[in-house]
C-alpha cells in the first residue's frame, strides 16, 4: 500500500497522492516511475502535468443541484456524468459492474491540471483510479497537452506505426493479431493517445485492465477499417478524413472550445499523416497488401 506515486503516460507525469494508503489497478503498475530528483541549487521544483488527490469518502451532495453538462451513457451502460462547478467540472462516475452505483466523485480544475477524486472509503483494496476514472482523466490530459485519444489499435513494424480504427466489431483486434503474427509490436487495441512532437506524430498506449509496458511508435498511417470480401485500400483526405478520424476519438463535445481544439488538431494531423479506408479480408494477406499499396493509394 502506498500514499504517493507517479505514473507516466504519453510522456506526461501524473502524480497521485493521498493521506490514506491506496493501490492502483494492475494496468497502471508498468507506468509507475521514480520521482525526478530536483537539481540542487537550481531552484527547480518538480511539476507533474497532472496531480490527483485521492480522498476516501464520497461527498454525495457535492454535485446535487449543479447543471448537468454531459451524460456518458448508452442503452447498456452508464459511465459518468459531468456537472458544472465553480472553477471547474464535477464528475459522477458509476460502477461498471453494477451499472448505476456511484463509484467515485471527481473534481477537475479549469486548466485540467488538478483532480480531486473521492472514492468509497470502505472499498478494499482502495483503488481511487478504478475504471472508468483513468480513461476520463487521460481524456482531459489530452486536452491539456493538445493531443487526442483514439479508439484504435496500432502496429509498429520497426519502421512504420499503423493505426487501425473504426466502430466496435470492425476488426481492430483481428488486424492487430495479423500484424503481430507478422512480427509487429502491438501498442494496444482500445485506447491510444496521439501526440504531435516536432514535425511528426507519435502514438502512445495507455494503461489497460491488464499489465502491459508503456509503448510508443511513430504514426505513419491511419486506417479506417471494415471487413470486406477483398482487400481494398483507398486514400481519403481533407474534410472527409478529418470527420472520419475524429469520429473515432474520445470526445466530450459539450464545450465548443474542446471541439475547436480537436478540429484544429485533426486538421493538422490529416495534413501530415495519410488516412486510408481499408476493407480487409481477415487473414495474413492484408499485411502484405497494405505494405504494397499504402504509399500508392
Amino acid at each position, binding site marked *: 500500500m502506498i500514499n504517493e506515486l507517479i505514473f507516466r503516460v504519453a510522456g506526461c507525469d501524473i502524480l497521485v497522492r493521498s493521506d490514506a494508503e491506496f493501490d492502483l489497478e494492475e494496468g497502471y503498475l508498468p507506468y509507475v516511475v521514480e520521482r525526478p530528483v530536483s537539481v540542487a541549487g537550481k531552484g527547480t521544483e518538480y511539476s507533474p502535468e497532472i496531480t490527483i488527490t485521492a480522498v476516501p469518502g464520497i461527498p454525495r451532495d457535492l454535485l446535487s443541484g449543479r447543471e448537468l453538462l454531459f451524460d456518458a451513457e448508452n442503452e447498456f451502460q452508464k459511465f459518468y456524468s459531468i456537472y458544472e462547478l465553480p472553477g471547474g467540472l464535477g464528475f459522477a462516475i458509476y460502477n461498471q459492474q453494477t451499472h448505476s452505483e456511484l463509484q467515485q466523485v471527481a473534481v477537475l480544475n479549469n486548466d485540467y491540471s488538478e483532480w480531486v477524486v473521492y472514492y468509497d472509503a470502505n472499498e478494499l483494496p482502495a483503488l481511487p483510479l478504478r475504471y472508468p476514472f483513468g480513461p476520463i482523466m487521460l481524456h482531459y490530459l489530452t486536452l491539456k497537452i493538445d493531443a487526442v485519444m483514439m479508439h484504435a489499435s496500432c502496429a509498429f513494424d520497426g519502421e512504420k506505426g499503423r493505426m487501425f480504427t473504426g*466502430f466496435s466489431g470492425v476488426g481492430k483486434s483481428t488486424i492487430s493479431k495479423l500484424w503481430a503474427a507478422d512480427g509487429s509490436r502491438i501498442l494496444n487495441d482500445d485506447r491510444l493517445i496521439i501526440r504531435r512532437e516536432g514535425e511528426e506524430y507519435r502514438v502512445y498506449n495507455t494503461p489497460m485492465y491488464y499489465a502491459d509496458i508503456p509503448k510508443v511508435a511513430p504514426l505513419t498511417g491511419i486506417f479506417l477499417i471494415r471487413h470486406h470480401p477483398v482487400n481494398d485500400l483507398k486514400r481519403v483526405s481533407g474534410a472527409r478524413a478529418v470527420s472520419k478520424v475524429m469520429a473515432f476519438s474520445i470526445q466530450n463535445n459539450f464545450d465548443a472550445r474542446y471541439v475547436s481544439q480537436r478540429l484544429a488538431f485533426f486538421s493538422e494531423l490529416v495534413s501530415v499523416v495519410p488516412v486510408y479506408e481499408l476493407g480487409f479480408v481477415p487473414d495474413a494477406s492484408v499485411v502484405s497488401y497494405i505494405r504494397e499499396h499504402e504509399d500508392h493509394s
Partner: protein
Amino acid sequence: MVQTYFQLKSKFVAREVGGELVVVPLTGNIAHMNELFTFNATAKLLWEELGPESTEASLAKALLDTYEVDEATAAADVKKFLARLEEMAAKY
C-alpha cells in the same frame, strides 16, 4: 422558416478543411459523439451565408454571385441544403 435554421448554427462548431467544412455537433450525450458532418464547397458557402435575416432567395443569390450556375440550379442547391439542416435540426 430559413431564419430558424440560423439558430441551429450555435449548436455546432465548424472548421474549414481543404475548401470544405467539417461540422461537429455540440452535444450533452455520448450517443452523438461519432456523428460528424461534412459540407462541400457549395454547402459551406450557404452555411457561412446563413444569417438571422436569410431567405431562400438570399441564399440562392449568394450561390449565383459566387458560382456560374443558373437560378434553377441555385434554388435546388438551397433546397437540398435546407433539407440537410432539417435532418440535423431533428437530432440536435
